[in-house]
């Protein structure tokens, strides 16, 4: 593992004015082209187009839910298997720094999001905290797409990245909700007193329990443990069929991802009309905040010793916003937050941005920083 002190590393980074030279711009454009003209983003685009022209694609709900389960189980299982190999070869030496960095990022991103939304955007405490909870958490599908992208570019990410996805899922939601619940408690008490009703009890504990025991964490973390334990203790021949099913040379996974992204495109297409309602600030936030968080992820990932693919994927998952785990938790804890704002920002702005443009940009950022 390459561990460079911060100051030495800082010397490798070009000065800011040189950020977008003509050559770098053309590299970014090439990366974008390489990413955009592949089946996964194109399926997403097809979904959007289909919704907008009232086309006839309809993914059965049960298929969509089954694919979501397969993707989460596959990410967890293969991640646990690779983690076991990493552990057998290096112990925890290569893992602890990226894990710590990911936890740190999971704690910082909801706070930066909240501050920007509240003080630059002038949104209410509940809306700011609600949206911050979405941006503090992560999207497993963005991880899957980013991972496919770096594999396609022949720069596979470090094997333990799925572990980092599970680490990133919870803290961001928890911090934003605690922040929002604490700051809005006084407002809520005043409002309740004004109308002469008792203060509604906070559902914070219940919401956090729902997040931790929700489908994405239970399946991904559960299968991670199962993959890890069975790799260490099972006879390799007996283990192979399980590995073949979940890995299937990436074929089943990528095919499922195409179907999933088609459905996501259908949903995002419906949400596009809400863009007018959320206003230009939130549209800008949904694009610029991921770029900033993505840069943090790429840079700190590099400091923690991740490879080029690893930095890219960490950047993408830090930049992504949750649209599965966060929304119910926010609805329970901060009912006065407008769900249209947070779901539209996460699903109709940030998710498409990351899939189409963000991931290649994080890849170029990682190259620029000097990740190998």
């Amino acid at each position, binding site marked *: 593992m390459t561990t460079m002190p911060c100051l030495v590393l800082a010397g490798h980074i070009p000065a800011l004015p040189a950020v977008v030279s003509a050559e770098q711009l053309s590299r970014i454009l090439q990366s974008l082209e390489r990413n955009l003209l592949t089946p996964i983003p194109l399926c997403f685009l097809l979904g959007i187009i289909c919704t907008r022209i009232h086309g006839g694609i309809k993914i059965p709900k049960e298929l969509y839910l089954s694919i979501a389960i397969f993707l989460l189980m596959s990410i967890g299982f293969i991640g646990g298997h690779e983690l076991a190999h990493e552990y057998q070869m290096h112990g925890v030496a290569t893992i602890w720094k990226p894990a710590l960095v990911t936890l740190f990022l999971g704690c910082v991103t909801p706070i930066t999001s909240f501050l920007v939304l509240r003080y630059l955007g002038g949104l209410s405490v509940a809306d700011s905290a609600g949206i911050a909870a979405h941006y503090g958490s992560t999207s497993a599908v963005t991880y899957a797409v980013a991972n496919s992208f770096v594999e396609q570019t022949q720069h596979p990410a470090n094997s333990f990245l799925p572990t980092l996805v599970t680490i990133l899922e919870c803290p961001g939601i928890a911090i934003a909700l605690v922040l929002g619940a604490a700051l809005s408690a006084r407002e809520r008490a005043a409002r309740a007193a004004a109308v002469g009703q008792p203060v509604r009890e906070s559902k914070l504990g219940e919401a956090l329990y729902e997040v931790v025991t929700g489908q994405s964490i239970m399946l991904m973390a559960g299968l991670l443990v199962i993959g890890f334990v069975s790799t260490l203790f099972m006879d390799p021949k007996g283990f192979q069929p399980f590995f073949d099913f979940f890995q299937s040379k990436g074929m089943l996974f990528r095919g499922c991802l195409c179907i999933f992204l088609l459905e*996501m495109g259908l949903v995002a297409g419906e949400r596009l009309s809400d863009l007018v309602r959320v206003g230009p600030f939130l549209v800008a936030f949904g694009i610029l905040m991921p770029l900033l968080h993505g840069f943090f992820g790429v840079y700190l990932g590099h400091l923690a010793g991740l490879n080029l693919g690893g930095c890219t994927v960490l950047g993408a998952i830090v930049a992504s916003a949750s649209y599965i785990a966060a929304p119910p938790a926010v609805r329970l804890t901060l009912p006065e937050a407008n769900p249209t704002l947070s779901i539209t920002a996460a699903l109709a702005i940030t998710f498409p941005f990351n899939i189409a443009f963000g991931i290649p940009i994080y890849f170029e950022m990682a190259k620029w920083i000097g990740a190998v």
Partner: protein
Amino acid sequence: MQLYALKLVTVVGETVVMEDIAKEGLKLGASGYTLSEVVGQGSRSARNVIVTGASRTTKCEFVVPTDVAEKILTYVSHTYFEHYAVIAWVADVHVMRGAAYVAG
């Protein structure tokens, strides 16, 4: 055939709060409830999205005596109407085996 006059309370709204409403209904005197997932559109926008749990819609039905129906409607309106996409109504129904709908 002996039929008994009771009230059918129907609450439709965000899935995220519907289990709470069902449980509270039992506490308020209902002997049971029926939950079903539905789709539709209301004044707080379309609620057909299945990707995010927060956007799903559930219908909760209780068959109860009049006093319990009033308690459930009061609870739902005070607790959820302000911030959640929830609607509720009551209708007259005639059921067989009336005793089955009285908790206790």
